[in-house]
């Protein structure tokens, strides 16, 4: 875990974004830029991965998907229990927050890839499928945890209008399930992977400059922007309290350890691959899950989950986490 990893341009631009906001610069990126860049990044990584995956071992791919589902379903429950144990948040907030930790952050994943590439460390392509798979299940778990929490709360309060609510919830639940699996990021990522796998090689060749050559520069720009977004949330640190803020650091460590273990021991990946699975376990979604939670658990306070996932866990993973999970992977694989 050399310090030199911090000197990756991508990480440095993230830091620049954070600093820009800390010194109260008036620097503001156009509101649609981050979205455009993330569309590009997902598309590029998807095409690239799909192309590789066309040659992949279907058995390992299948196992990866199973483990992605297991991680996606388990991590939010771990997080939920941890949060409820702190007694610092109500169960609905706990459900909403922990859903974020079962899902993943493509930005963190891509930074990890830049990190590995820079050290010339090989990695398997399967974690990319896991990235796509893990976007959705956590949202579902969040919904289930919230339903449970609501029942608890309602039972406590004497449960007046539970009946009428329930009928409504049925329809909503179905709709949200569909939303979880047709989520925009998932569509781009899986769609691009399929295109990468089935498109004609001659066609793919022509895409190379777009998806490969300028990739790293776009990632830098994206992380620059996200650094500013994260920094705007760092200020809310005080609002969420020390206990919650600590969760934003401990939870990725827990998820990272579990992820690295799954990658190295269950899936038999190399150091690079295990590091990436660690990053999947450690990272928290800040694109797909927040709007889903606004819809599904409106009672939860968005300040909590946005501050944790965007303001604490994201910077922690980009700057400290990735090299750490890499060390862990080295330790386990060796």
């Amino acid at each position, binding site marked *: 875990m050399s310090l030199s990893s911090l000197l990756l341009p991508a990480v440095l631009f993230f830091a620049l974004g954070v600093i820009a906001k800390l010194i109260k610069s008036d620097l503001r990126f156009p*509101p*649609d830029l*981050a979205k455009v860049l993330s569309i590009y990044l997902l598309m590029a990584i998807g095409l690239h991965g799909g192309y590789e995956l066309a040659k992949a071992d279907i058995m390992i791919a299948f196992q990866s998907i199973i483990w992605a589902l297991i991680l996606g379903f388990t991590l939010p429950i771990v997080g939920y229990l941890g949060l409820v144990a702190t007694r610092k948040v109500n169960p609905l907030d706990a459900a909403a927050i922990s859903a974020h930790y079962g899902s993943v952050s493509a930005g963190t994943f891509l930074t990890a890839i830049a990190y590995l590439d820079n050290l010339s460390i090989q990695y398997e392509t399967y974690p990319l499928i896991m990235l796509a798979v893990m976007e959705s299940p956590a949202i579902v778990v969040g919904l289930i945890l919230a339903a449970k929490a609501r029942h608890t709360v309602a039972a406590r309060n004497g449960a007046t209008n539970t009946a009428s609510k329930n009928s409504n919830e049925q329809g909503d639940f179905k709709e949200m399930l569909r939303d979880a699996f047709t989520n925009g990021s998932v569509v781009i990522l899986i769609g691009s992977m399929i295109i990468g796998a089935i498109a004609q090689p001659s066609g793919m060749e022509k895409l190379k400059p777009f998806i490969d050559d300028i990739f790293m520069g776009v990632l830098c720009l994206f992380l620059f922007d996200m650094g500013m*977004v994260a920094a705007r949330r760092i200020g809310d640190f005080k609002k969420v309290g020390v206990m919650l803020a600590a969760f934003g650091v401990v939870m990725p460590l827990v998820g990272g350890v579990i992820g690295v273990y799954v990658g190295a021991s269950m899936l038999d990946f190399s150091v690079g691959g295990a590091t990436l699975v660690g990053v999947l376990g450690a990272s928290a979604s800040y*694109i797909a899950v927040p*709007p889903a939670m*606004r819809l599904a*658990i*409106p009672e939860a306070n968005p300040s909590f989950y*946005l501050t944790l996932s965007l303001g604490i866990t994201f910077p922690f993973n980009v700057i400290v986490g990735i090299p750490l999970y890499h060390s862990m992977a080295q330790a386990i694989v060796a």
Partner: protein
Amino acid sequence: MVSLYSEKMLNIISNDSLEEKLVCMFKKYGVNGYTVVQARGEGSSGQVSDMSGFDANIVVKVILPESKIQVILESIERKIKKGYHLTVYITDIKVITPEKFEKTAS
């Protein structure tokens, strides 16, 4: 001399993740016209940027006949009670083509 007719304009400020839900509600009550403007803002649930796809607010504007206001407001109130963050306000307006806003559901 162009005649002016009284109508109501219902304005809802909300997170853009609720747009589909709100439009559905309008259509359910036979309101087929609306206008949406992208916005940023701050309120009890913290600061909301106008970053599309991340965290953005919208202002939804609907011109309605007085007669439809109550039933829609009741639906909105139910949503607010469920926890949704909706900032709602109504203004008196004058229009020149009342038939446009008074027709019943299509």
